[in-house]
């Protein structure tokens, strides 16, 4: 009975996780060191979704929901930027910095937000269907 609600909630949680990853990417756009202070530029993260939500209570949710399968670290996401005199610059004055495009991240954030809204709308529709069925009974 609550299968569609479980599915919509798994979608909401997945999109929220995606939004967190995008926020992390935007926040670390200029991060060049790790927590210990060693040179290690931040690598862009991206979420990978997979069908099925093991945390759902109903069998429909477990089968047809969505889950965050992994948060992938893109090991190649670095770009060279000319910053002469920078402590981490090489002999030509280039520093390897995170290859994160704020425009792309904003677009992804907008898409995640719209997808979240779509899942909310689906959940509302499922709830409306249930209460309409109850009106038949009452």
């Amino acid at each position, binding site marked *: *009975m*609550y299968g569609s*609600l*479980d599915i919509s*909630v798994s979608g*909401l*949680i997945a999109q*929220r996780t995606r939004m967190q990853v995008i926020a992390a990417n935007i926040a670390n756009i200029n991060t060049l060191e790790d927590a210990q202070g060693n040179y290690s530029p931040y690598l862009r993260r991206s979420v990978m979704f997979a069908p099925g939500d093991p945390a759902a209570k109903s069998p429909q949710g477990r089968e047809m929901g969505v889950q965050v399968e992994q948060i992938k670290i893109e090991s190649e996401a670095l770009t060279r930027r000319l910053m002469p005199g920078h402590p981490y610059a090489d002999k030509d004055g280039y520093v390897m910095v995170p290859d994160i495009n704020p425009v792309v991240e904003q677009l992804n954030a907008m898409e995640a937000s719209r997808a979240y809204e779509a899942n909310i709308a689906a*959940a509302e529709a499922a*709830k409306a269907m*249930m*209460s309409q069925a*109850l009106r038949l*009974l*009452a």
Partner: protein
Amino acid sequence: MSDPLGLIRSATSGGSSPLAGGARLAPGAPSFKDVLLQNIDEVNKLQQDATRAVEDLQAGRRNDVEGVMLATAKADTAFKALQAVRNRVMEAYDEIKQIRV
């Protein structure tokens, strides 16, 4: 099966007791009382789940608003369904009460 008030007499004993109008319950079928009490138990469990979810959210023990929304929506729908069944039963009872003997 809990019967806190002990008001509903069991409609069946082995599926052979005659019901009103000579109708018989299919053998092995659960009685209306059993189904009703089971549903009340389930609705109660969902209500408790929802209450606990809201408490946990406010106390900071969990941070998924979506799960709390799901628990409250489930409890709300289940309670409304139970209320609809109860209203139907009361309607039937009132109608029987109107019959002149």
